[in-house]
Every structure is written in structure tokens, then in C-alpha cells.
């Protein structure tokens, strides 16, 4: 049997929403799965059910062939026995214990030399060696996050769960730590489930995206696939009208970056912190469609292509242009009529370099 995480979590909140989320994904092939959705969609309910903190009213949870929860058979493996590491939103470090004691907390049973070695190893890996004797209140937000992650990993969990791991940080710190967190998760050697409502976070951290809306899982798939091919309108609304393409950095100049996405070369503003791999994101609203004989314009990216698909959405029309990559543009119905945007029509897509958002994919 394939190693997998599968759950079917039903929970009713009195006078509130009903959560009925069901999904399954393999534990191999990319360690990080992002549970993505607006607040109230049930992300945290699912996460806490996986951690064994709030049992579902009904349903089942199984991990790697082991049943963690089955309402029908009255199985509810306690948190202590599931082997999960949980990273809380505000990290929940034990305030009365030093960093060293926080790290050691979950490995208390191990023999002392073994435990000391484990702490030293984690401190080294997470850059905490200098901080071991501090108390949590003496740490910065980023340091707290690293301590919390190291503490969760110390007992060698089989599954790592992260609840909005970056939301407790201020915006500049968050920018820096996104890449760092991705790196740490990728090298943790443990499958992880990250809850977030932040699109950029989902892109930067995830290998796989599970979209939650209205209490149920609507789509599971590779991150850019879900973004570029939402399964239904609800998913499209949740992930936003965003074009997302895996991109490779070709070169830099004057604060701009040239990336290769699909068969096209795109110019974008350098966000900093870029390695070689990134996601190039363009909101469909920011794509301007022009006739091929178009005049000059300030847009640095002008990609000629053909209309591959067209879908009318009220006053707007969603047009997919195949121009080396399937670029989606959102234009008014009047513009679509004037430019005769039907399938097969030749057209040019213009995107300003500043409208291309590059999300680093560090590894």
C-alpha cells in the first residue's frame, strides 16, 4: 500500500459552520502540503484533528497505514501516541523554561547523553547554539519560530503540522523567514502540513496545495497546477485570479530579473532572496491584451500568442492566451468584442515588469 495521509473530518459547531473535509495525499513526492483557504474554511479544525487535540464528531483519520481516528470503531489515538510535531501560530514556547529545556522537553525519556546529542544537533542545524540558555521572552520572533520548530522536531515526529507559521511575525521578518522556513521544512526529513490563508506563503512553502472552502476540501494538487487550473469557480475565487508559473532565473540587471517560464522569457522586478527557482505570478487583471500591430507601450513584457480559450463571467471575460505559457487575462466584455477575442485569434499580451511577482523557491 502506498504511504499516505488520509482524513475524513466532520465537525459541527453549534450555531456555526459544519466542517466536512475529506482528502488524501501520498507522503512521498514533495514533503510540504499547504492547507489553503479563507478563514472559517476549516483549516485549523482539520489541523487540530490531525494533531489529536480536537476529535472530529464523525469520520476517520489514518496515517501511513495506521488508524489514528475512527468514530465508528471508537478509535482515537491520543496526541501523545501519534508522533506529530505541532508548530503553533504564536509558537507556544514554555515561558518558564530555557531554550535548552524547551528543546529537551519532548525527548525526556531518552538517555541523557543521547538527549544532549540530539539537542546539540538541533541547535546547530537551527542556529540556536548561542541561545540555549535564554528564556523565550528574550528571543526575537524569528528565533522563537526556530526554537518552536526545533522543539517539535526533537522527538523525531512522523508528521509535522504548522498552523499559520508566519502570521505572528512583522511583515519584513516574514519576507525573510518564508524562504528560510521552506529550506528548513525541505530538509526536516518529515512530511509537513502547513495551514495558511496567505497566497504568497502557500506558493513559497508548498509542494502540494489542498484548497479548503466552506468546510470541505475542493482540490488537491501541485501548487502551480491548482493556481493555474482551479477545479471549479469556488477554488478559483479562493486562490485568486492569478497566473502562476514555475520559473527559472536567467539573469539580473538594473534591479530586474529575467526568468524563463514555459517557453516565454519574462522580465520582473527583483524581490530579493531569489535563488534559481521561483514562481512567477501575474494577476489576470494586470494582463493587457492588444492587437498585434500595437503601438509602443511602457510594458516590458509583450508576448504574442493565440487565444486558447474564452469564458464569459458577467461583465468580464476570462481569456487564456497561449504565448509560450498559458496566460490568463481578465478583460471587459466590450474590449473582448472590439479585439475579436475568439479562440484562435492572434493577440499580444502586455504585462508590466512591476506586475510580475516572483516568489522565491529556495531549497
Amino acid at each position, binding site marked *: 500500500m502506498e504511504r499516505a495521509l488520509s482524513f475524513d473530518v466532520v465537525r459541527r459547531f453549534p450555531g456555526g459552520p459544519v466542517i466536512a473535509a475529506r482528502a488524501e495525499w501520498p507522503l512521498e513526492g514533495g514533503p510540504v502540503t499547504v492547507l489553503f483557504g479563507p478563514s472559517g474554511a476549516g483549516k485549523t479544525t482539520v489541523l487540530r484533528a490531525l494533531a489529536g*487535540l480536537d476529535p472530529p464528531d464523525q469520520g476517520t483519520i489514518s496515517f501511513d497505514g495506521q488508524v489514528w481516528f475512527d468514530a465508528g470503531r471508537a478509535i482515537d489515538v491520543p*496526541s*501523545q501516541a501519534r508522533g506529530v510535531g505541532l508548530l503553533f501560530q504564536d509558537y*507556544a514556547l*514554555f515561558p*518558564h523554561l530555557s531554550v535548552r529545556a524547551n528543546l529537551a*522537553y*519532548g525527548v525526556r525519556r531518552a538517555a541523557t547523553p543521547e538527549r544532549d546529542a540530539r539537542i546539540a544537533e538541533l541547535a546547530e542545524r537551527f542556529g540556536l547554539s548561542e541561545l540555549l540558555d535564554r*528564556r523565550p521572552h528574550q528571543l526575537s520572533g524569528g528565533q522563537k519560530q526556530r526554537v518552536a520548530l526545533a522543539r517539535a522536531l526533537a522527538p523525531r515526529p512522523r508528521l509535522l503540522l504548522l498552523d499559520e507559521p508566519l502570521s505572528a511575525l512583522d511583515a519584513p521578518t516574514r519576507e525573510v523567514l518564508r524562504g528560510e522556513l521552506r529550506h528548513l521544512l525541505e530538509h526536516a526529513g518529515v512530511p509537513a502540513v502547513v495551514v495558511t490563508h496567505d497566497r504568497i506563503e502557500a506558493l513559497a512553502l508548498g509542494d502540494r496545495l489542498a484548497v479548503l472552502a466552506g468546510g470541505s476540501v475542493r482540490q488537491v494538487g501541485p501548487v502551480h497546477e491548482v493556481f493555474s487550473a482551479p477545479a471549479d469557480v469556488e477554488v478559483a475565487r479562493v486562490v485568486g485570479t492569478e497566473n502562476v508559473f514555475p520559473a527559472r532565473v536567467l539573469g539580473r540587471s538594473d534591479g530586474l530579473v529575467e526568468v524563463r517560464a514555459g517557453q516565454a522569457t519574462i522580465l520582473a522586478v527583483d524581490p530579493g532572496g531569489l535563488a534559481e527557482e521561483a514562481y512567477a505570478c501575474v494577476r489576470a487583471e494586470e494582463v493587457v491584451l492588444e492587437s498585434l500591430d500595437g503601438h509602443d507601450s511602457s510594458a516590458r513584457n509583450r508576448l504574442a500568442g493565440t487565444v486558447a480559450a474564452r469564458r464569459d463571467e458577467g461583465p468580464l471575460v476570462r481569456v487564456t492566451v497561449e504565448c509560450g505559457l498559458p496566460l490568463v487575462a481578465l478583460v471587459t466584455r466590450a474590449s473582448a468584442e472590439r479585439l475579436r477575442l475568439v479562440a484562435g485569434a492572434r493577440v499580444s499580451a502586455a504585462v508590466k515588469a512591476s506586475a510580475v511577482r516572483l516568489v522565491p523557491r529556495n531549497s
Partner: protein
Amino acid sequence: MDFAALLLSGELAGLTSALLVLLGLPIAWWLVVSRWRWKFLVEAVVALPIVLPPTVLGFYLLTGLGPRSPAGRLFAAVAGHPFPFSFTGLVIASVLYSLPFAVQPFAGALAGVDRRLVEASYTLGVSPLATFFRVTLPLAWPGVLAGAVLTFAHTLGEFGVVLMVGGNIPGRTRTLSVAIFDHVEALEYGAAHRTAGLLLAISFAVLALVYGLQRRPFFRWNER
């Protein structure tokens, strides 16, 4: 100054506080974590001594544990002496009478510990009982100390229950508050002044300590 009464009062208050830490903590913990629908009844029972006249409690204890009741005969068999007019009887009565003064601060302190810290401990593989001693209690101890100190002060000042259950036997059941009553009855105002002043000073110091504990955290980790 009536040193025998001071010593006895101190002994009674100290013993009552210690017993209530042992007894009150589990009750407080249960009150905090339980989701039982009839829990409020237990809460009401625990709070009863706040509103009940001490004479009522004393009366029921005397009839319930007196030599003529089965429980009283059991008490006499175990303790070697009858319940009324004994120091042990005084301790039992004091524990019951001060129960809410211990349990309520305890419960407040335990409930004030961030639930997520407890959950973090669970996910790190630590059992609920071990979590209580390694996380909850270390973080709640200022409140626990406040409850113990409050119990001490309350027991020092109790009068009605002591008189009902213990009577007035010097060196055995004659506490400070009973001594003051004696002095006034005998029109010894000088002695009554000294004893009452002492009790006032101790009570004030103890309450100041309680409020000081709650206002300013002892350690910086309590600042959240």
C-alpha cells in the same frame, strides 16, 4: 500575650493551608478541565462556606461526626478520640470552611495558563498528569501561593466554627480569635487589644502579600 493561642492558631492555619493545597488543587483542576454538565452543582457546593454562617457548618459537623453518628464512631475509632473538642476536628472543620478560599484562586490560576502550552506538551508526547506538573503548576504557582496564603489568613480569623466544633480548651482548641472573645468577656481590654492588634497586623500583612503577588509578577515570564 497569649502565646499558646498564637501557636495553636498558627499551627491550625498552617496545617489547613497545606492540606488544602493537596486537596484543593485536584478539585480546582477538575473544575477547570471538566465539561460535565452538572459541574455547576459542584461549584456551588465548593462555594457554600462563603455564604453559610459558620454555625451552620459547625452544627452539621457536630451532628454528622458526633459520637452518636456512625461516621463519628468511625472517626473515634481511627483517631483514638471523639471528633468534638479535638484539634483534629478543628483541622477538618477549617479545611471545609476555607475550601472556597483555596479552590477559587487555584482554579483561576490554573485556568489562566495558556491552553496551547498544555496542547504543545501533549503533542510532544507528555501525559496529562506530567503536563500538569511540568507546565501548568510551574506557571500557575503565584496563584496557588495566593490561595494558600488566603486560606492561612482566613483560618487565622475563623471564630464560629472553632467555637462550635472545638470549644475553648487552652492549648488544644483555644485559638487567637477565641482568646479575644474570652478577654472581652472577662473585661480584660488590655489583653484583648494586644491580641486583636496582632491579628489585625498579621491579616493585613498576609492580604497585602496576596494582592502584591497578583499585581506584580514574580518573574518576567509571567508578563505576556
